[in-house]
Protein backbone atom coordinates (compact mmCIF):
# COMPACT_ATOMS: atom_id res chain seq x y z
CA UNK A 1 0.00 0.00 0.00
CA UNK A 2 1.36 3.37 -0.93
CA UNK A 3 1.86 5.98 1.73
CA UNK A 4 -0.17 8.45 -0.30
CA UNK A 5 -2.94 7.58 -2.72
CA UNK A 6 -4.49 10.43 -4.69
CA UNK A 7 -7.47 9.26 -6.75
CA UNK A 8 -9.20 11.24 -9.47
CA UNK A 9 -8.93 14.61 -7.84
CA UNK A 10 -10.64 17.42 -9.72
CA UNK A 11 -10.77 21.11 -8.86
CA UNK A 12 -12.50 23.94 -10.62
CA UNK A 13 -12.03 27.68 -10.10
CA UNK A 14 -15.03 29.31 -11.72
CA UNK A 15 -14.64 28.49 -15.37
CA UNK A 16 -11.15 27.08 -15.08
CA UNK A 17 -10.59 23.37 -14.51
CA UNK A 18 -7.34 23.57 -12.56
CA UNK A 19 -7.01 19.88 -11.82
CA UNK A 20 -8.76 17.17 -13.76
CA UNK A 21 -9.03 13.60 -12.50
CA UNK A 22 -5.47 13.54 -11.26
CA UNK A 23 -4.26 10.34 -9.65
CA UNK A 24 -0.89 9.51 -8.22
CA UNK A 25 0.83 7.40 -5.59
CA UNK A 26 3.79 8.01 -3.37
CA UNK A 27 5.53 4.82 -2.29
CA UNK A 28 7.01 4.51 1.17
CA UNK A 29 10.63 5.52 1.52
CA UNK A 30 10.92 6.76 -2.07
CA UNK A 31 11.13 10.15 -3.71
CA UNK A 32 8.29 10.92 -6.09
CA UNK A 33 8.32 14.00 -8.29
CA UNK A 34 5.44 15.97 -9.76
CA UNK A 35 6.55 18.00 -12.72
CA UNK A 36 4.88 19.98 -15.46
CA UNK A 37 4.86 23.38 -17.13
CA UNK A 38 3.94 26.49 -15.20
CA UNK A 39 0.27 26.75 -14.43
CA UNK A 40 -0.26 23.03 -14.81
CA UNK A 41 -1.97 22.80 -11.43
CA UNK A 42 0.80 21.26 -9.35
CA UNK A 43 0.61 23.61 -6.39
CA UNK A 44 -3.17 23.40 -6.48
CA UNK A 45 -2.92 19.65 -6.18
CA UNK A 46 -0.53 20.01 -3.24
CA UNK A 47 -2.89 22.43 -1.56
CA UNK A 48 -5.71 19.93 -1.94
CA UNK A 49 -3.65 17.04 -0.59
CA UNK A 50 -2.55 19.04 2.45
CA UNK A 51 -6.06 20.24 3.21
CA UNK A 52 -5.76 23.89 2.24
CA UNK A 53 -8.22 23.63 -0.63
CA UNK A 54 -11.31 21.48 -0.90
CA UNK A 55 -11.47 19.15 -3.88
CA UNK A 56 -14.52 19.11 -6.10
CA UNK A 57 -14.17 15.39 -6.66
CA UNK A 58 -11.87 12.52 -5.87
CA UNK A 59 -10.15 11.32 -2.75
CA UNK A 60 -6.85 11.45 -0.93
CA UNK A 61 -5.71 8.59 1.28
CA UNK A 62 -2.76 8.76 3.62
CA UNK A 63 -1.57 5.41 5.00
CA UNK A 64 -4.89 4.00 3.87
CA UNK A 65 -6.82 6.61 5.81
CA UNK A 66 -9.18 8.98 4.03
CA UNK A 67 -8.00 12.55 4.59
CA UNK A 68 -9.88 14.38 1.87
CA UNK A 69 -11.20 17.64 3.23
CA UNK A 70 -9.52 17.34 6.61
CA UNK A 71 -8.19 20.51 8.22
CA UNK A 72 -4.49 21.19 7.49
CA UNK A 73 -3.39 21.05 11.10
CA UNK A 74 -4.96 17.64 11.57
CA UNK A 75 -3.33 16.30 8.43
CA UNK A 76 -0.02 17.57 9.73
CA UNK A 77 -0.69 15.82 13.01
CA UNK A 78 -1.10 12.58 11.09
CA UNK A 79 2.34 12.98 9.58
CA UNK A 80 1.85 14.75 6.25
CA UNK A 81 3.46 18.17 6.04
CA UNK A 82 3.92 20.61 3.17
CA UNK A 83 6.19 23.53 2.34
CA UNK A 84 5.08 26.56 0.37
CA UNK A 85 6.23 27.62 -3.06
CA UNK A 86 6.34 31.23 -1.93
CA UNK A 87 8.28 30.90 1.27
CA UNK A 88 6.47 31.79 4.46
CA UNK A 89 8.99 32.30 7.23
CA UNK A 90 8.01 33.59 10.65
CA UNK A 91 9.91 36.77 9.97
CA UNK A 92 10.30 38.26 13.40
CA UNK A 93 11.44 34.97 14.95
CA UNK A 94 14.94 33.54 14.80
CA UNK A 95 15.77 30.47 12.73
CA UNK A 96 15.84 28.38 15.88
CA UNK A 97 12.45 29.66 16.99
CA UNK A 98 11.04 29.04 13.53
CA UNK A 99 12.09 25.43 13.49
CA UNK A 100 10.96 25.00 17.08
CA UNK A 101 7.40 25.80 16.01
CA UNK A 102 7.51 22.68 13.89
CA UNK A 103 9.19 20.70 16.63
CA UNK A 104 6.47 21.64 19.09
CA UNK A 105 4.11 19.30 17.30
CA UNK A 106 5.69 16.49 19.25
CA UNK A 107 7.49 18.37 22.01
CA UNK A 108 5.35 20.22 24.45
CA UNK A 109 8.19 21.61 26.53
CA UNK A 110 9.86 24.73 25.20
CA UNK A 111 13.35 23.63 26.10
CA UNK A 112 13.03 20.29 24.32
CA UNK A 113 11.52 21.90 21.25
CA UNK A 114 14.43 24.33 21.00
CA UNK A 115 16.88 21.44 21.34
CA UNK A 116 15.10 19.47 18.63
CA UNK A 117 15.21 22.58 16.46
CA UNK A 118 18.97 22.72 16.83
CA UNK A 119 19.27 19.10 15.75
CA UNK A 120 17.17 19.63 12.66
CA UNK A 121 19.10 22.76 11.78
CA UNK A 122 22.27 20.69 11.85
CA UNK A 123 20.62 18.08 9.68
CA UNK A 124 19.93 20.59 6.91
CA UNK A 125 23.17 22.47 7.37
CA UNK A 126 21.79 25.61 8.99
CA UNK A 127 23.44 25.53 12.40
CA UNK A 128 25.50 28.63 11.63
CA UNK A 129 22.31 30.68 11.31
CA UNK A 130 20.36 29.40 14.28
CA UNK A 131 20.09 32.75 16.04
CA UNK A 132 19.63 34.95 13.02
CA UNK A 133 16.23 36.52 12.41
CA UNK A 134 14.36 34.70 9.68
CA UNK A 135 13.61 37.84 7.74
CA UNK A 136 17.32 38.43 7.29
CA UNK A 137 17.92 35.21 5.41
CA UNK A 138 18.62 34.95 1.70
CA UNK A 139 16.13 33.16 -0.51
CA UNK A 140 18.20 30.00 -0.30
CA UNK A 141 18.28 30.27 3.47
CA UNK A 142 14.54 30.75 3.63
CA UNK A 143 13.92 27.72 1.45
CA UNK A 144 16.16 25.68 3.67
CA UNK A 145 14.37 27.03 6.74
CA UNK A 146 11.05 26.05 5.21
CA UNK A 147 12.39 22.54 4.75
CA UNK A 148 13.82 22.41 8.26
CA UNK A 149 10.59 23.59 9.84
CA UNK A 150 8.61 20.91 8.05
CA UNK A 151 11.18 18.30 8.98
CA UNK A 152 10.91 19.22 12.64
CA UNK A 153 7.35 17.94 12.70
CA UNK A 154 8.78 14.44 12.19
CA UNK A 155 6.65 13.71 9.16
CA UNK A 156 6.07 10.41 7.40
CA UNK A 157 5.41 12.22 4.14
CA UNK A 158 7.01 15.50 3.14
CA UNK A 159 5.51 17.60 0.35
CA UNK A 160 8.15 19.95 -1.06
CA UNK A 161 6.90 22.70 -3.35
CA UNK A 162 9.68 24.04 -5.59
CA UNK A 163 12.16 24.08 -2.79
CA UNK A 164 14.96 24.65 -5.32
CA UNK A 165 13.50 27.59 -7.24
CA UNK A 166 15.88 30.49 -7.29
CA UNK A 167 18.90 28.56 -6.04
CA UNK A 168 22.36 28.54 -7.59
CA UNK A 169 23.68 25.20 -8.91
CA UNK A 170 25.83 24.79 -5.80
CA UNK A 171 22.87 25.40 -3.55
CA UNK A 172 20.78 22.97 -5.59
CA UNK A 173 23.38 20.26 -5.08
CA UNK A 174 23.41 20.89 -1.35
CA UNK A 175 19.64 20.63 -1.10
CA UNK A 176 19.61 17.48 -3.22
CA UNK A 177 22.02 15.89 -0.75
CA UNK A 178 19.82 16.97 2.15
CA UNK A 179 16.69 15.55 0.53
CA UNK A 180 18.47 12.28 -0.14
CA UNK A 181 19.47 12.05 3.49
CA UNK A 182 15.89 12.72 4.52
CA UNK A 183 14.75 9.88 2.31
CA UNK A 184 17.42 7.63 3.73
CA UNK A 185 16.13 8.41 7.21
CA UNK A 186 12.81 6.86 6.22
CA UNK A 187 10.71 9.84 5.21
CA UNK A 188 8.69 9.59 2.00
CA UNK A 189 9.07 12.63 -0.23
CA UNK A 190 6.75 14.06 -2.86
CA UNK A 191 8.18 17.09 -4.58
CA UNK A 192 7.21 19.65 -7.18
CA UNK A 193 10.23 20.87 -9.13
CA UNK A 194 11.28 22.70 -12.24
CA UNK A 195 14.99 22.16 -11.86
CA UNK A 196 15.25 19.16 -14.18
CA UNK A 197 18.74 17.94 -13.37
CA UNK A 198 17.72 17.72 -9.73
CA UNK A 199 14.47 15.93 -10.53
CA UNK A 200 16.22 13.40 -12.72
CA UNK A 201 18.94 12.64 -10.18
CA UNK A 202 16.65 12.55 -7.15
CA UNK A 203 13.43 10.89 -8.13
CA UNK A 204 12.54 7.26 -8.11
CA UNK A 205 9.17 7.99 -9.67
CA UNK A 206 7.86 10.89 -11.76
CA UNK A 207 4.37 12.11 -12.61
CA UNK A 208 3.86 14.75 -15.27
CA UNK A 209 0.95 17.17 -14.91
CA UNK A 210 -0.16 19.33 -17.82
CA UNK A 211 -3.23 21.56 -17.80
CA UNK A 212 -4.59 19.73 -14.80
CA UNK A 213 -4.19 16.21 -16.16
CA UNK A 214 -1.58 13.58 -15.47
CA UNK A 215 -0.11 12.85 -18.88
CA UNK A 216 2.77 10.57 -17.99
CA UNK A 217 4.12 8.42 -15.19
CA UNK A 218 7.34 6.49 -14.89
CA UNK A 219 11.01 6.46 -13.98
CA UNK A 220 13.33 9.31 -14.98
CA UNK A 221 14.56 7.68 -18.17
CA UNK A 222 11.04 6.88 -19.40
CA UNK A 223 9.82 10.38 -18.75
CA UNK A 224 12.78 11.98 -20.46
CA UNK A 225 12.05 9.97 -23.55
CA UNK A 226 8.28 10.46 -23.57
CA UNK A 227 7.28 12.59 -26.58
CA UNK A 228 4.15 13.90 -24.86
CA UNK A 229 6.22 15.25 -22.01
CA UNK A 230 8.70 16.86 -24.36
CA UNK A 231 5.87 18.47 -26.21
CA UNK A 232 4.23 19.73 -23.03
CA UNK A 233 7.41 21.53 -22.15
CA UNK A 234 7.73 22.87 -25.67
CA UNK A 235 10.98 21.15 -26.15
CA UNK A 236 12.69 22.48 -23.05
CA UNK A 237 14.34 19.48 -21.42
CA UNK A 238 16.67 21.27 -19.11
CA UNK A 239 15.53 24.28 -17.15
CA UNK A 240 18.16 26.73 -16.01
CA UNK A 241 18.67 26.71 -12.29
Amino acid at each position, binding site marked *: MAVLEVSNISKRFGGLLAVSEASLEAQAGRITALIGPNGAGKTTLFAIIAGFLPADAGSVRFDGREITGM*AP*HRICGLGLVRTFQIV*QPFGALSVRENIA*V*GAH*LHQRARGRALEAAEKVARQVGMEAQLDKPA*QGLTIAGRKRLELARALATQPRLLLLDEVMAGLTPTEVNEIVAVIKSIRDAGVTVLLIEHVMQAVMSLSDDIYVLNQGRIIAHGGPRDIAADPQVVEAYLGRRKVHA
Partner: protein
Amino acid sequence: MKKIFLIICIFFLVLPLFITSRFWLGFWTTTLFFALLGQSWNILGGYGGQVSFGHAVFFGTGAYVSAVLQVRFGLDAWTSAAIAVAAGALVGAFIGALSFRYGLRGSYFALVTLAFAEVFRVLVNAWDFTGSGFGMLVPMKPGAASLQFADRTWFYYAILLLVVLAYAITWRVERSRFGAYLLAIRENEDAARALGINAFRIKLAAITLSGAMAAVAGVFYIQYYLFVDSHVGYGPAMSVNALLAPLIGGAGTVLGPLIGAIALGSLAELTSALLGKQPGVNLLAYGVLLLVILRFLPNGLMGLLKRAPRGSS
Protein backbone atom coordinates in the same frame (compact mmCIF):
# COMPACT_ATOMS: atom_id res chain seq x y z
CA MET B 1 15.37 39.01 32.23
CA LYS B 2 14.22 37.71 35.60
CA LYS B 3 16.55 40.19 37.28
CA ILE B 4 14.91 43.10 35.49
CA PHE B 5 11.51 41.93 36.69
CA LEU B 6 12.75 41.74 40.21
CA ILE B 7 14.20 45.22 40.09
CA ILE B 8 10.97 46.63 38.69
CA CYS B 9 8.90 44.84 41.31
CA ILE B 10 11.04 46.19 44.11
CA PHE B 11 10.88 49.68 42.63
CA PHE B 12 7.12 49.67 42.60
CA LEU B 13 6.91 48.03 46.01
CA VAL B 14 8.85 50.78 47.73
CA LEU B 15 7.53 53.61 45.62
CA PRO B 16 4.66 54.55 47.96
CA LEU B 17 7.16 55.19 50.72
CA PHE B 18 8.53 58.09 48.71
CA ILE B 19 5.23 59.51 47.62
CA THR B 20 3.68 62.12 49.84
CA SER B 21 0.87 63.52 47.76
CA ARG B 22 -2.43 61.89 46.85
CA PHE B 23 -1.93 63.19 43.37
CA TRP B 24 1.15 61.13 42.61
CA LEU B 25 -0.26 58.06 44.30
CA GLY B 26 -3.24 58.38 41.98
CA PHE B 27 -0.91 58.90 39.05
CA TRP B 28 0.95 55.67 39.65
CA THR B 29 -2.21 53.76 40.44
CA THR B 30 -3.73 54.89 37.15
CA THR B 31 -0.52 54.13 35.29
CA LEU B 32 -0.44 50.60 36.65
CA PHE B 33 -4.10 50.26 35.72
CA PHE B 34 -3.33 51.09 32.10
CA ALA B 35 -0.36 48.76 32.24
CA LEU B 36 -2.77 45.96 33.13
CA LEU B 37 -5.35 46.90 30.51
CA GLY B 38 -2.60 47.26 27.94
CA GLN B 39 -1.20 43.84 28.74
CA SER B 40 -4.60 42.28 28.13
CA TRP B 41 -4.63 43.87 24.69
CA ASN B 42 -1.05 42.82 24.16
CA ILE B 43 -1.77 39.13 24.51
CA LEU B 44 -4.29 39.19 21.70
CA GLY B 45 -2.90 42.00 19.59
CA GLY B 46 0.80 42.02 20.30
CA TYR B 47 1.57 38.33 20.58
CA GLY B 48 -1.36 37.00 18.59
CA GLY B 49 -1.35 39.67 15.95
CA GLN B 50 -5.12 40.09 16.18
CA VAL B 51 -5.50 43.83 16.56
CA SER B 52 -8.61 44.75 18.50
CA PHE B 53 -10.24 48.15 18.28
CA GLY B 54 -12.96 47.38 20.76
CA HIS B 55 -11.18 46.05 23.80
CA ALA B 56 -13.55 48.07 25.94
CA VAL B 57 -16.07 45.31 25.34
CA PHE B 58 -14.15 43.10 27.79
CA PHE B 59 -13.23 45.88 30.18
CA GLY B 60 -16.78 47.19 30.33
CA THR B 61 -18.15 43.73 30.94
CA GLY B 62 -15.87 43.32 33.93
CA ALA B 63 -16.90 46.65 35.39
CA TYR B 64 -20.61 46.35 34.66
CA VAL B 65 -21.08 42.73 35.77
CA SER B 66 -19.30 43.45 39.00
CA ALA B 67 -21.40 46.57 39.57
CA VAL B 68 -24.70 44.95 38.67
CA LEU B 69 -24.07 41.92 40.88
CA GLN B 70 -23.24 44.10 43.85
CA VAL B 71 -25.98 46.67 43.38
CA ARG B 72 -28.87 44.65 42.00
CA PHE B 73 -28.24 41.30 43.60
CA GLY B 74 -26.44 42.30 46.75
CA LEU B 75 -23.60 39.90 46.13
CA ASP B 76 -20.37 40.57 47.96
CA ALA B 77 -17.58 42.25 46.11
CA TRP B 78 -15.25 39.27 45.92
CA THR B 79 -17.79 36.90 44.38
CA SER B 80 -18.94 39.60 42.01
CA ALA B 81 -15.37 40.13 40.95
CA ALA B 82 -14.84 36.46 40.23
CA ILE B 83 -18.02 36.22 38.19
CA ALA B 84 -17.18 39.42 36.35
CA VAL B 85 -13.81 38.04 35.28
CA ALA B 86 -15.49 34.86 34.10
CA ALA B 87 -17.95 37.02 32.15
CA GLY B 88 -15.07 38.81 30.48
CA ALA B 89 -13.58 35.50 29.47
CA LEU B 90 -16.94 34.36 28.15
CA VAL B 91 -17.41 37.46 26.04
CA GLY B 92 -13.91 36.90 24.71
CA ALA B 93 -14.71 33.34 23.81
CA PHE B 94 -17.98 34.36 22.18
CA ILE B 95 -16.50 37.09 20.01
CA GLY B 96 -13.51 34.91 19.22
CA ALA B 97 -15.57 31.90 18.28
CA LEU B 98 -17.69 33.95 15.90
CA SER B 99 -14.92 36.01 14.36
CA PHE B 100 -12.34 33.28 13.98
CA ARG B 101 -14.83 30.67 12.88
CA TYR B 102 -15.67 32.92 9.96
CA GLY B 103 -12.06 33.71 9.26
CA LEU B 104 -12.03 37.37 10.15
CA ARG B 105 -8.53 38.73 10.13
CA GLY B 106 -6.64 41.98 10.24
CA SER B 107 -8.67 45.11 9.75
CA TYR B 108 -11.98 43.25 9.55
CA PHE B 109 -11.42 41.72 12.93
CA ALA B 110 -10.45 45.09 14.37
CA LEU B 111 -13.66 46.67 13.12
CA VAL B 112 -15.83 43.81 14.31
CA THR B 113 -14.49 44.17 17.84
CA LEU B 114 -15.35 47.85 17.66
CA ALA B 115 -18.84 46.98 16.46
CA PHE B 116 -19.33 44.61 19.37
CA ALA B 117 -18.17 47.24 21.82
CA GLU B 118 -20.66 49.66 20.35
CA VAL B 119 -23.49 47.13 20.54
CA PHE B 120 -22.77 46.57 24.22
CA ARG B 121 -22.52 50.28 24.80
CA VAL B 122 -25.91 50.97 23.31
CA LEU B 123 -27.43 48.04 25.18
CA VAL B 124 -26.29 49.04 28.66
CA ASN B 125 -27.17 52.61 27.91
CA ALA B 126 -30.73 51.71 27.04
CA TRP B 127 -31.41 49.14 29.72
CA ASP B 128 -32.59 50.35 33.11
CA PHE B 129 -31.17 47.25 34.75
CA THR B 130 -27.70 48.47 33.91
CA GLY B 131 -28.43 52.01 34.89
CA SER B 132 -29.26 53.23 31.38
CA GLY B 133 -27.93 56.74 30.82
CA PHE B 134 -27.06 57.30 34.47
CA GLY B 135 -24.61 54.44 34.79
CA MET B 136 -24.02 52.25 37.80
CA LEU B 137 -23.01 53.56 41.18
CA VAL B 138 -21.61 51.11 43.71
CA PRO B 139 -22.29 52.21 47.28
CA MET B 140 -19.23 53.20 49.28
CA LYS B 141 -18.47 50.64 51.98
CA PRO B 142 -14.81 50.89 52.92
CA GLY B 143 -13.29 47.64 54.03
CA ALA B 144 -11.49 44.69 52.57
CA ALA B 145 -14.66 42.62 52.54
CA SER B 146 -16.21 44.92 49.98
CA LEU B 147 -12.96 45.35 48.06
CA GLN B 148 -12.83 49.03 48.84
CA PHE B 149 -10.11 50.69 50.81
CA ALA B 150 -10.31 53.96 52.68
CA ASP B 151 -6.58 54.33 52.45
CA ARG B 152 -5.88 54.70 48.73
CA THR B 153 -2.47 53.12 49.19
CA TRP B 154 -4.15 49.76 49.43
CA PHE B 155 -5.60 50.27 45.97
CA TYR B 156 -2.10 50.95 44.72
CA TYR B 157 -0.85 47.67 46.12
CA ALA B 158 -3.88 45.85 44.80
CA ILE B 159 -3.28 47.01 41.24
CA LEU B 160 0.42 46.32 41.65
CA LEU B 161 -0.35 42.75 42.66
CA LEU B 162 -2.67 42.34 39.67
CA VAL B 163 -0.05 43.75 37.34
CA VAL B 164 2.64 41.44 38.69
CA LEU B 165 0.34 38.45 38.24
CA ALA B 166 -0.69 39.44 34.74
CA TYR B 167 2.87 40.09 33.67
CA ALA B 168 4.06 36.85 35.18
CA ILE B 169 1.38 35.01 33.22
CA THR B 170 2.40 36.80 30.04
CA TRP B 171 6.04 35.97 30.71
CA ARG B 172 5.20 32.28 31.06
CA VAL B 173 3.04 32.36 27.95
CA GLU B 174 5.93 33.84 25.99
CA ARG B 175 8.07 30.87 26.96
CA SER B 176 5.51 28.17 26.34
CA ARG B 177 4.32 26.23 23.36
CA PHE B 178 1.12 28.28 23.42
CA GLY B 179 3.18 31.43 23.05
CA ALA B 180 5.29 29.99 20.26
CA TYR B 181 2.12 28.99 18.42
CA LEU B 182 0.60 32.44 18.96
CA LEU B 183 3.65 34.12 17.48
CA ALA B 184 3.63 31.72 14.55
CA ILE B 185 0.00 32.56 13.85
CA ARG B 186 0.80 36.25 14.05
CA GLU B 187 3.68 35.98 11.63
CA ASN B 188 2.03 33.68 9.14
CA GLU B 189 -1.21 31.90 9.88
CA ASP B 190 -1.19 29.60 6.86
CA ALA B 191 2.33 28.40 7.51
CA ALA B 192 1.36 27.82 11.13
CA ARG B 193 -1.58 25.64 10.12
CA ALA B 194 0.66 23.69 7.81
CA LEU B 195 2.84 22.87 10.81
CA GLY B 196 0.01 21.33 12.77
CA ILE B 197 -1.22 24.35 14.69
CA ASN B 198 -4.97 24.51 15.30
CA ALA B 199 -5.12 28.23 14.67
CA PHE B 200 -8.73 28.56 15.70
CA ARG B 201 -8.19 26.99 19.09
CA ILE B 202 -5.04 28.95 19.82
CA LYS B 203 -6.61 32.27 18.86
CA LEU B 204 -9.69 31.42 20.89
CA ALA B 205 -7.56 30.71 23.94
CA ALA B 206 -5.74 34.00 23.45
CA ILE B 207 -8.87 36.10 23.21
CA THR B 208 -10.40 34.35 26.20
CA LEU B 209 -7.33 35.06 28.31
CA SER B 210 -7.24 38.61 27.00
CA GLY B 211 -10.91 39.11 27.82
CA ALA B 212 -10.44 37.79 31.34
CA MET B 213 -7.46 40.06 31.97
CA ALA B 214 -9.30 43.12 30.66
CA ALA B 215 -12.26 42.23 32.86
CA VAL B 216 -9.93 42.16 35.87
CA ALA B 217 -8.97 45.72 34.95
CA GLY B 218 -12.67 46.51 34.74
CA VAL B 219 -13.26 45.11 38.23
CA PHE B 220 -10.43 47.17 39.62
CA TYR B 221 -11.86 50.25 37.94
CA ILE B 222 -15.30 49.90 39.43
CA GLN B 223 -13.95 49.23 42.91
CA TYR B 224 -11.62 52.20 42.66
CA TYR B 225 -14.03 54.75 41.18
CA LEU B 226 -17.30 53.12 42.27
CA PHE B 227 -18.90 54.40 39.06
CA VAL B 228 -19.22 53.26 35.47
CA ASP B 229 -21.43 54.33 32.60
CA SER B 230 -21.83 53.21 29.01
CA HIS B 231 -19.35 55.71 27.70
CA VAL B 232 -16.62 54.92 30.18
CA GLY B 233 -17.18 51.19 30.14
CA TYR B 234 -17.77 50.45 26.49
CA GLY B 235 -16.81 53.64 24.76
CA PRO B 236 -14.06 54.10 22.19
CA ALA B 237 -11.91 56.01 24.67
CA MET B 238 -11.12 52.95 26.77
CA SER B 239 -10.59 50.86 23.65
CA VAL B 240 -8.06 53.36 22.38
CA ASN B 241 -6.35 53.51 25.77
CA ALA B 242 -6.08 49.73 25.75
CA LEU B 243 -4.10 49.69 22.53
CA LEU B 244 -2.02 52.83 22.99
CA ALA B 245 0.14 51.57 25.85
CA PRO B 246 1.31 48.32 24.21
CA LEU B 247 1.77 49.89 20.79
CA ILE B 248 3.88 52.70 22.17
CA GLY B 249 5.77 50.58 24.63
CA GLY B 250 6.28 47.59 22.38
CA ALA B 251 3.65 45.10 21.28
CA GLY B 252 4.58 41.47 21.70
CA THR B 253 6.92 42.10 24.62
CA VAL B 254 6.21 41.52 28.28
CA LEU B 255 7.27 44.94 29.54
CA GLY B 256 5.98 46.92 26.57
CA PRO B 257 2.59 47.83 28.03
CA LEU B 258 4.16 48.98 31.29
CA ILE B 259 6.68 51.18 29.54
CA GLY B 260 3.96 52.50 27.29
CA ALA B 261 1.70 53.27 30.22
CA ILE B 262 4.47 55.16 31.98
CA ALA B 263 5.33 57.06 28.80
CA LEU B 264 1.72 58.01 28.17
CA GLY B 265 1.07 59.00 31.75
CA SER B 266 4.16 61.17 31.82
CA LEU B 267 3.24 62.73 28.50
CA ALA B 268 -0.21 63.57 29.82
CA GLU B 269 1.27 65.32 32.85
CA LEU B 270 3.73 67.14 30.65
CA THR B 271 1.08 68.48 28.31
CA SER B 272 -1.10 69.51 31.22
CA ALA B 273 1.79 71.42 32.69
CA LEU B 274 2.68 73.11 29.41
CA LEU B 275 -0.72 73.72 27.86
CA GLY B 276 -3.06 73.70 30.79
CA LYS B 277 -5.87 71.36 31.57
CA GLN B 278 -7.83 71.82 28.37
CA PRO B 279 -9.95 68.90 27.30
CA GLY B 280 -8.42 66.87 24.57
CA VAL B 281 -4.85 68.09 24.86
CA ASN B 282 -3.32 64.94 26.23
CA LEU B 283 -5.19 62.77 23.76
CA LEU B 284 -3.89 65.02 21.02
CA ALA B 285 -0.39 64.38 22.27
CA TYR B 286 -1.10 60.66 22.37
CA GLY B 287 -2.18 60.72 18.73
CA VAL B 288 1.00 62.46 17.70
CA LEU B 289 3.10 60.07 19.76
CA LEU B 290 1.37 57.12 18.13
CA LEU B 291 2.22 58.39 14.66
CA VAL B 292 5.78 59.12 15.65
CA ILE B 293 6.23 55.65 17.08
CA LEU B 294 4.62 53.99 14.06
CA ARG B 295 6.97 55.88 11.78
CA PHE B 296 10.25 55.67 13.63
CA LEU B 297 9.91 52.92 16.20
CA PRO B 298 7.44 50.37 14.89
CA ASN B 299 8.55 47.99 17.61
CA GLY B 300 7.69 50.51 20.24
CA LEU B 301 9.98 51.95 22.87
CA MET B 302 11.19 48.45 23.68
CA GLY B 303 12.71 48.50 20.23
CA LEU B 304 15.21 51.03 21.51
CA LEU B 305 16.37 48.66 24.19
CA LYS B 306 16.46 45.42 22.28
CA ARG B 307 18.56 44.75 19.22
CA ALA B 308 16.81 41.57 18.04
CA PRO B 309 13.54 42.24 16.21
CA ARG B 310 10.60 41.36 18.41
CA GLY B 311 7.07 42.56 18.39
CA SER B 312 4.59 42.85 15.53
CA SER B 313 6.10 42.91 12.07
